[in-house]
């Protein structure tokens, strides 16, 4: 009788350790870590304790090698996002996909690439399609746990004498992945099937060679082929460098030592994290929330996506007595027909990006921290959709907003313990994203996503202002890129870059300012543009009396007379839109269409030569009462154009004398003015409990805009706890409720609903 596939599979040698399959190894690792509370059940670290120098030497080699792989491999790329901005990352994993060491860069992908390897293990890739030495796998499937489609992973198994000793993973943020709109984080997708070319953990090469069918299919599925191709070579080069590195370490140290090392370094990471929590934080509970507008009612989208709503992300950090860190997002609202949905892996991995910049600012970022923490991710929420149709192409829109308040929560602990230098009022919402695509100035089918967003304002600390135009939460190595490079790669000429006054939140220490750049269309054919940013809502609060950073808007002008103005030598719109209450761009041009509005998310519009579009990069939130800001710092801000005169006067309470355009603060008059403002505060404010009665009446009368009611209705439908706390706080009777079905807005895809389930 002929052998069946099953017979063949059963006789095939397992590739895990000691004759086990990877799946067996994964399950055993989960069980023992959970049972003992220590990674791999390691109550002691014998290797580290008996031979610490050797242990650290191995660590340094691996860490240095992984960073080196990133720095070297990125030179292969042509994409400015990778080569200029460093939007790539490499990581080394155990056979079961726990991260051992990771490079610098977009380290959110420590988790996402691990999720992809775990997906392959769980789905028996060992049997089919097989995992062999020198194989190459690719993944960018959002629902496997990726952040968004443009983050493309290359995964390479590392074998030693027939056993898998690990995996190398590399990720780059690719400029275009063939979504329904161009660019890496497009607006327009509202379903998975609009998000672009998704590859689900596919074997794309063997014997270190890419398959021809893969090369043909993938390059025919995306717009900017040269960037796609060179990004892939970048990832493969880095993974192969890491593979060589691991094999060299094993040759030098012995495979048994290597195996022991990779277990201990993760447990060491877990212990290090617990130690940092005890050193820096205070046990207890920390609460915060973030909100992002989804103004989709008037966009060119399918009818079921056309509604205005708000993404709601409350969070509660619990620092337990044993220093375990728990973050619960109970109360978050529903996923929706927008590209801002996320996966649990992407929100938790992103938290590690944030924590690596504050609570654990060292190079021991591995899955140890994951084993020392716990997350509550509501099923059906925007970061745990219960439907595979959800779109994720611009997931950062909501993720950035969700993470920033966590930093604010941790800062209350730093403040309490006296580590004032670590306090951060939050982070900028890294937008607007400026995107587009078509045939570029070289006649090639291309796409763009301006990564000027990697240099937004930082939140203020408790001892100094936030750094202006400098950083992004998602990549600590922020760099706005050179204008000359952007102009080489994008069919848009710069009409200037300028700091935006007042974009950082006001405070005793102000948030770092954001900035604007103005771009002129030039040389493209059949090109479209759009923006994606937070518009009518501030995505974070200030801290301890500081104000939130300013919120967003867009400026775009089509069919302008700039060509004629250039010919006549007339003034042009240049630089930033420094005071949108008194705009001047329009004084220096005419245009058939001008968008100067709060619609900071837009869908594709044709964009031709001499059309103009502004990029607005946000500031960070402020810390402390602005009336306590040193008046000389306000004077400096005013003269250096970080703030407008009227806000220096009315928000900071400063009085100035002006001479030849230079302002000098009058300290005595300022003191008097500040006293007067404090008096006015008491006069026009009211006791909170009195105000609560008025607000309660509005709630009882359902007096709020549709988007606000919709946000609450979704959170009520998903969370009994949030509902109870809401009602308890406002003393609302049991029968009062807002239901999604009663609001007259589309409810397609709203499956989980505790009210309907009760019925």
């Amino acid at each position, binding site marked *: 009788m002929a052998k069946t596939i099953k017979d063949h599979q059963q006789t095939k040698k397992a590739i895990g350790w000691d004759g086990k399959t990877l799946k067996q190894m994964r399950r055993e690792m989960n069980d023992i870590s959970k049972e003992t509370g220590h990674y791999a059940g390691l109550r002691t670290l014998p290797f580290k304790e008996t031979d610490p120098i050797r242990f650290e030497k191995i660590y340094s080699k691996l860490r240095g090698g992984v960073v080196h792989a990133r720095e070297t491999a990125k030179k292969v790329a042509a994409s400015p996002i990778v080569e200029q901005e460093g939007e790539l990352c490499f990581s080394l994993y155990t056979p079961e996909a726990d991260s051992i060491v990771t490079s610098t860069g977009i380290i959110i992908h420590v988790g996402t690439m691990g999720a992809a390897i775990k997906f392959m293990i769980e789905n028996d890739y060992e049997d089919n399609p097989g995992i062999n030495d020198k194989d190459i796998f690719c993944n960018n499937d959002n629902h496997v746990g990726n952040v968004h489609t443009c983050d493309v992973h290359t995964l390479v198994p590392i074998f030693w004498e027939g056993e898998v000793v690990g995996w190398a993973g590399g990720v780059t943020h690719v400029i275009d992945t063939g979504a329904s709109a161009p660019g890496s984080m497009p607006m327009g997708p509202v379903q998975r099937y609009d998000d672009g070319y998704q590859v689900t953990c596919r074997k794309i090469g063997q014997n270190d060679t890419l398959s021809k069918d893969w090369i043909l299919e993938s390059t025919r599925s995306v717009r900017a082929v040269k960037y796609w191709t060179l990004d892939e070579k970048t990832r493969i080069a880095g993974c192969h460098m890491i593979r060589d590195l691991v094999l060299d370490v094993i040759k030098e140290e012995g495979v048994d030592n290597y195996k022991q090392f990779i277990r201990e370094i993760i447990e060491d990471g877990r212990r290090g994290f617990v130690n940092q929590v005890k050193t820096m934080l205070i046990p207890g509970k920390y609460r915060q929330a973030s909100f992002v507008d989804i103004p989709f009612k008037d966009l060119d989208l399918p009818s079921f996506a056309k509604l205005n709503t708000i993404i709601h992300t409350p969070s509660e950090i619990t620092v337990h007595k044993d220093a375990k860190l728990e973050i619960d997002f109970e109360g978050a609202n529903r996923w929706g027909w927008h590209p801002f949905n996320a996966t649990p892996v992407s929100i938790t991995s992103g938290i590690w990006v944030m924590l690596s910049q504050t609570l654990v600012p060292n190079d021991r970022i591995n899955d140890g921290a994951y084993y020392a923490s716990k997350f509550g991710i509501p099923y059906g929420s925007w970061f745990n959709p219960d439907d595979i149709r959800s779109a994720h192409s611009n997931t950062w829109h909501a993720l950035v907003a969700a993470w920033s308040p966590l930093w604010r929560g941790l800062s209350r602990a730093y403040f309490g313990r006296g580590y004032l230098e670590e306090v951060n009022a939050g982070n900028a919402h890294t937008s607007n994203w400026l995107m587009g695509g078509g045939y570029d100035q070289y006649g090639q089918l291309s796409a763009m996503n301006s990564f000027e967003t990697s240099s937004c304002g930082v939140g203020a600390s408790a001892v100094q202002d936030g750094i202006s135009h400098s950083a992004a939460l998602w990549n600590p190595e922020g760099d706005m890129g050179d204008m000359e490079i952007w102009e080489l790669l994008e069919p848009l000429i710069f009409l200037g870059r300028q700091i935006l006054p007042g974009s950082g939140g006001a405070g005793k220490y102000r948030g770092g300012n954001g900035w604007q750049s103005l771009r002129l269309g030039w040389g493209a054919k059949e090109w479209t543009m759009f923006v994606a940013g937070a518009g009518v809502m501030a995505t974070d609060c200030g801290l301890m009396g500081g104000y939130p950073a300013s919120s967003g808007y867009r400026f775009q002008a089509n069919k302008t007379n700039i060509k004629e103005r250039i010919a006549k030598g007339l003034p042009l719109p240049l630089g930033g839109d420094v005071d949108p*209450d008194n705009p001047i761009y329009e004084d220096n041009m005419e245009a058939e269409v001008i968008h100067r509005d709060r619609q900071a998310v837009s869908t594709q519009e044709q964009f031709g030569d001499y059309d103009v579009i502004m990029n607005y990069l946000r500031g960070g939130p402020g810390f402390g*009462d602005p009336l306590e800001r040193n008046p000389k710092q306000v004077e400096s801000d005013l003269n250096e154009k970080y703030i407008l005169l009227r806000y220096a006067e009315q928000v900071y309470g400063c009085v100035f004398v002006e001479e030849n355009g230079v302002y000098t603060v009058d300290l005595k008059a300022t003191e008097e003015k500040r006293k007067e403002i404090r008096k006015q505060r008491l006069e026009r404010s009211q006791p909170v409990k009195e105000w609560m009665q008025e607000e309660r009446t509005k709630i009882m009368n359902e007096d709020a805009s549709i988007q606000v009611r919709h946000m609450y209705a979704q959170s009520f439908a998903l969370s009994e706890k949030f509902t109870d706390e809401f009602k308890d706080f406002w003393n609302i009777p049991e029968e009062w409720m807002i239901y999604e079905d009663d609001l007259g807005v589309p409810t397609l895809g709203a499956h989980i609903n505790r009210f309907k389930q009760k019925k």
Partner: protein
Amino acid sequence: MAKYDKKRINELIEGTLEFYQLKEMMSSHKDPERFELYREVLQDRVSWDDPILLPYGLHLYIVQKANGDRIVKCDCGHEFCDYKENWKLHARIFVRDTEEKMNEIYPKLMSPDPEWQVIREYYCPNCAAQLEVEAVPPWYPIILDFEPDIDTFYKEWIKKPLPKA
């Protein structure tokens, strides 16, 4: 491991350290004695005698009263409430819920739209310091930002006796 004196911690609180000094503090391993030093410096800076149990925010402290109560207190001397309650409920509030009120802080296109979000400012009823600002949609319950477990912190984490009134 870094070690600082009261003068340095006072300068940190005052915000007068140079960036290179702050950078050094950020890059060094944290000094375990910081909390005690910080608490003592803050105690010297306030005009009242209630022992500070925990700095709770800019101007706000959880203090120990002689009768055993733990109270949220402003450095101006105003006492809000028991530390388990939300001090904001005992503050004064000003809500920016119109375009005009928003425009006092931001240019119109750069402020939240009050149809979507309001700004709530919480002031000390005595000294009028702006102690916290919330940017939330209308109806949002006032957030209880921080509930510290003071006993565990002192007894199990830093292993120090609780200050007594």
